[in-house]
C-alpha cells in the first residue's frame, strides 16, 4: 500500500492557516473564504475548509485547514477524522488569542488523540513571542513548538517536517 498522510492545520482566526497551506501546496488550494462581517483584522475568513496537497520524497501529504472561529467547531471534528497529525498555528504577535488556541488544541486532542506541533507564526515581526515562550505557555516540550513564518515555503516545510517526524517516529531523511 502506498503511503500518504492526512494532516490537519488548525488555530485561531488570523494565525496563518490558509497562508501556511498556500505556501506548501503544489496544487491550487481549495479555499472556502467569505467576506468577514465582524472586525477580525482581515477581510475574509474560512467557513468550511482549505485543502492543499504536496508530495515530500514521493509521499503525498494532504493538508486540511479548519475554520478558525469557534462557531465552526463542527468542522474541526469533520476534518480531523482520519488525520495522522495536527499543526496548530498561533500568531506570535497575538498573545490574546493564545487561550483560544489552547481551547482548540484541547478540543481536538481530547477527541482525537493525534500527534501535534504548535507553529508560532509571524516570527519575521520585531515584537513577537518566541517558540520557547509559547512552549512555556502551553506547557509543552520545546521540540513540539516551532517558530515560523507561514508565508515562507521553506519555513512552512520545516514545520511540516517536524510534525511528520512526530507522526512517523523517525527523523526525516529526505532531500528537500
Amino acid at each position, binding site marked *: 500500500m502506498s503511503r500518504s498522510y492526512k494532516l490537519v492545520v488548525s488555530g485561531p482566526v488570523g494565525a496563518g492557516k490558509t497562508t501556511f497551506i498556500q505556501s506548501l501546496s503544489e496544487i491550487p488550494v481549495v479555499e472556502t*473564504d467569505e*467576506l468577514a*462581517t465582524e472586525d477580525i483584522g482581515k477581510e475574509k475568513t474560512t*467557513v*468550511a475548509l482549505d485543502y492543499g496537497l504536496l508530495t515530500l520524497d514521493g509521499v503525498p501529504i494532504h493538508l486540511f485547514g479548519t475554520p478558525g*472561529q469557534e462557531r465552526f467547531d463542527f*468542522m474541526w471534528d469533520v476534518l480531523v477524522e482520519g488525520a495522522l497529525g495536527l499543526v496548530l498555528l498561533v500568531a506570535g504577535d497575538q498573545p490574546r488569542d493564545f487561550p483560544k488556541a489552547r481551547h482548540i488544541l484541547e478540543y481536538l486532542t481530547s477527541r482525537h488523540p493525534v500527534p501535534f506541533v504548535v507553529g508560532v507564526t509571524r516570527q519575521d515581526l520585531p515584537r513577537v513571542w518566541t517558540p520557547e515562550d509559547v512552549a512555556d505557555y502551553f506547557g509543552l516540550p520545546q521540540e513540539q513548538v516551532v517558530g515560523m513564518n507561514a508565508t515562507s515555503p521553506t519555513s512552512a516545510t520545516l514545520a511540516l517536517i517536524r510534525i511528520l517526524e512526530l507522526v512517523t517516529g523517525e527523523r526525516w531523511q529526505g532531500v528537500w
Partner: protein
Amino acid sequence: MSRQEELQGILRELRQAVPEITGVMVASTDGLSLATDLPEAEAARAAAMAATALGLGKRIAQTSALGGLEEVVVRGQAGYLVVYAAGDKGVLAVTAPMGANLGLIHLEARSAAAHIAQTLA
C-alpha cells in the same frame, strides 16, 4: 423599516406561503445569524452550518463548472434542509419534514432569497 424587520417580514411571508416549512434562517455568508425563528441557542450553530454548506457548495459548483451556486439540498430520512444563496452576502436556510412539497419550497424560497439579497445589498 429596519433591515432586521425587513428580513423578519420576508421570513414570515415565506412561512405563510409554505406552512410545511418548520424553520427558517437568514445568516451572513460568514455564518452569523441575521434573522430566524429558531431558538437563540440553536441559531448560532445553524447559521455557521448554513454558511459552511453554502461556502463548500460554492466551491464544489465552481470546481465542477456548474456556474454560480444557487442552493444546496440536504435530504435526510426525516426531512430536508435547503440552503439558498441570497446574493453575495447572505444565506437563507429552510427546513421541512419528509414528504413536504420541495418544488413549492424552492419556488417560494428562491423568490425570498432574491428579496433577502436586495435587502442585504
